[in-house]
């Protein structure tokens, strides 16, 4: 009975119902988009440094970490890397041979880190191929190709196809020099990539230092929604003797910044949420108070107060049930659209464009967020109706009828 009356009431006054439904729709949409955007921001902000340079997890021989001596390689590195690739949550793993050395052009010399990379897997882990701004990704040069950063190329005044000499110690401590040819120039906002690294083929550098098949570093990229610590723990429990670290340990400053950002974003979401609660409560209050006359009439003709109370609450639930799917759909559609196309931040800040940064964020949301948000908003609406409903049943029917 009450259900029926409530349902009819919802549709009797369309305008009023639409406002409440509207605020529920906007509420769900705002929360979904806000959270999705926040996730995108957190991932996007770190992305440049993590994706192109540090990676989510690095594995080393503990001795190697101390002084970068090429003697301290990871035992069976290649095998370990191929096992890791099969793990859940791992998007890619690559091995590197790391040698400190010097790069020289006819004009200048500079201290660098020579990174012997596995071409196929390096492209998966750091997308090194995507940041090549001039030349190619190790192609077009048969013997000893090298990729260097744009700043380094500028310092050395070399171009694609120029010859450079790399000097370093081999595994016996002898100083070795070898001629390389620049295959490509990479550009990134990371200082180390632009200035400090020279990427060469792993087999070239391993042959030159005389340590065939040995690697110093395994870099792992994980699914953004997957906890890195789980993989770190898994690794350490299977292989002892190596040190596995997540980017939080490798770049603590970045981790600290990220934590500060995420807490700030939570504060922002709290503000939006409270604003939303206020909006809904206000609208509900208005919606019930507007009906004093009608409710007074119902009570005057003998409707039980408890029933009136529940009628109002059930009406609100109905409104929520109608509004929620619409809000969910719009929210999902917005997120889906931006997940595919990205939010271009430079549209919102002249500065970013002026500096030529491409800052596109890709929001994403877990399924359970949709559910939590929807239930949360409906509960908010019902709570918003509690007070006005209580106010309504305290009415004196006669007085209520008199009110305009």
């Amino acid at each position, binding site marked *: 009975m009450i259900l029926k009356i409530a349902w009819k009431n919802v549709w009797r006054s369309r305008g009023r119902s639409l406002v409440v439904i509207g605020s529920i729709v906007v509420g769900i949409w705002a929360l979904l988009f806000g959270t999705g955007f926040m996730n995108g921001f957190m991932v996007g902000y770190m992305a440049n440094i993590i994706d192109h340079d540090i990676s989510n997890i690095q594995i080393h021989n503990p001795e190697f970490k101390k002084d970068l001596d090429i003697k301290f390689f990871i035992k069976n590195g290649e095998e370990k890397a191929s096992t890791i690739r099969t793990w859940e949550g791992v998007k890619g793993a690559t091995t590197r041979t790391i040698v400190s050395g010097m790069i020289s052009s006819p004009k200048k010399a500079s201290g660098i880190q020579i990174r012997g990379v596995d071409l196929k897997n390096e492209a998966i882990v750091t997308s090194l191929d995507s940041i090549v701004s001039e030349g190619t990704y190790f192609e077009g040069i048969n013997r000893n190709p090298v990729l260097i950063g744009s700043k380094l190329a500028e310092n050395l005044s070399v171009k694609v196809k120029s010859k450079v000499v790399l000097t370093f110690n081999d595994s016996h401590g002898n100083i070795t020099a070898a001629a390389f040819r620049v295959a490509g120039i990479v550009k990134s906002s990371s200082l180390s990539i632009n200035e400090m690294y020279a990427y060469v083929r792993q087999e070239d550098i391993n042959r030159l230092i005389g340590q065939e098949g040995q690697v110093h570093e395994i870099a792992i990229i994980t699914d953004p929604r997957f906890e890195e610590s789980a993989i770190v723990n898994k690794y350490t429990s299977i292989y002892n003797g190596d040190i596995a670290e997540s980017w939080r340990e490798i770049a*603590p*400053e970045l981790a600290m910044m990220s934590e500060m950002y995420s807490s700030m974003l939570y504060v922002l979401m709290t503000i939006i949420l409270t604003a939303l609660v206020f909006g809904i409560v206000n609208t509900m209050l208005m919606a019930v108070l*507007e009906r004093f006359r009608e409710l007074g009439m119902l009570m005057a003709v003998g409707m039980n107060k408890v029933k009136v109370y529940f009628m109002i609450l059930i009406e609100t639930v109905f409104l929520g049930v109608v509004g929620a799917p619409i809000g969910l759909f719009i929210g999902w559609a917005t997120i889906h659209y931006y997940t595919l196309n990205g939010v271009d931040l430079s549209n919102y800040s002249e500065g970013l464009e002026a500096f030529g940064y491409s800052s596109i*964020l890709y929001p994403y949301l877990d399924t359970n967020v949709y559910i939590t948000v929807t239930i949360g908003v409906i509960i908010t609406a019902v709570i918003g109706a509690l007070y006005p409903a209580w106010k309504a049943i305290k009415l004196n029917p006669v007085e209520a009828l008199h009110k305009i």
Partner: protein
Amino acid sequence: MILILAWRNIWRNKRRSFITLSSIGFAVVFATLMMSVQKGSLDQLINNTVKFYTGHFQIQNPKYWEEKTIDNTLIYTDEVIEKIENIEGVTAVSPRIESFSLTSYGSISKASMVLGITPEKEDRILNLSKKLTKGKMITANSKGVVIAEGLSEYLKVEVGDTLVMISQGFHGSNAAGLFVIEGILKFTNPIHNKQMICMPLKEAQWFYDLDNKLTSIAILLQDNKLLPLVEKEVKGIVSKEDYTVISWHKLIPDLIEMAEMKYASSRIMILILYSVIGFGMFGTFLMMTAERMREFGILLAIGMKRKRLQVTTFLEILLLSSIGVIMGLALSGVLLFYFYNNPIDLGSSYDKMADSYGIEMSIQFSMQSSIFITQAFAVFIIAFILSFYPLIVIHKTTPVVAIREG
């Protein structure tokens, strides 16, 4: 007349007006709160990052920026430093010599960064004494050095060992010296932790044959927003030909990217907030109109001109909005004042690290007056746009329908 009518209308139905007022007032509170936390954290990000090394800005020899060699130095006088220290808003002024050396102990050697400083002054920027893990801190008159933990591990040295340092001094002179390690510092920045050697300014000047020259003077401010003001004053103190002033914008270009990204994303968040509060306000306006249909109908029926009714309603909303905005400003003023003085503390695992940087892990709020003005204005504009809804309704309605519906 109309104004009085509008005023009376507001007070006739106090409850309804109060709900509308609160929806406008709280809209202002939420908008200012949001803007304040965004501005505050942006300032904090900048203030924190410049403490990692550079300071808010530096004074250098104009040639030094292009070519960072020890030859492009500036002449140092205590008088200039003192003058800058006395500018309001300046919290630290640290004269520095930054260069490199090859540092050896036994048969191990490594290229390292050398930072010549006045320890008491530098402490206010780099917080060196908090980074000390072993031994003691150097003073302005000591003869020894403090070195980074990572470097000490690489060289396998302890407090009390003597380092051999070789480098190139002023105009190509040979620089060589023996320095006793007095203490070991743990830098959180991995590059500093692997390379840094700090020595008293006097020793560095002797080592590099620099007499009374410096490579840079780093300046830390109370707050980033003072930067343009202080920069201008400093430019007045130092002569233009010999000195150049370089701010963090140029010293840490990465930070601009971070700041800009944050700024852009905060704009999106505030747009989301506007849509939420806008809809909340629209809800109350719409209800208010629906509730008064009968009243409007009767007024029209007894011969009130439509235009006049519209003007009255419009004035009513304008009055309500103004009162609401003012109330909202008062409330947000109180709230922000509280949060400004009691920033939200983030108890976290990074506390220790934050401490060694000398920064605070907390969410700061900004009290800039522009926030209040812009947000009050924004909410007022939203209310203004929404107020056209009742006007349109009055324009369309006919007395008969309106009286019945009410």
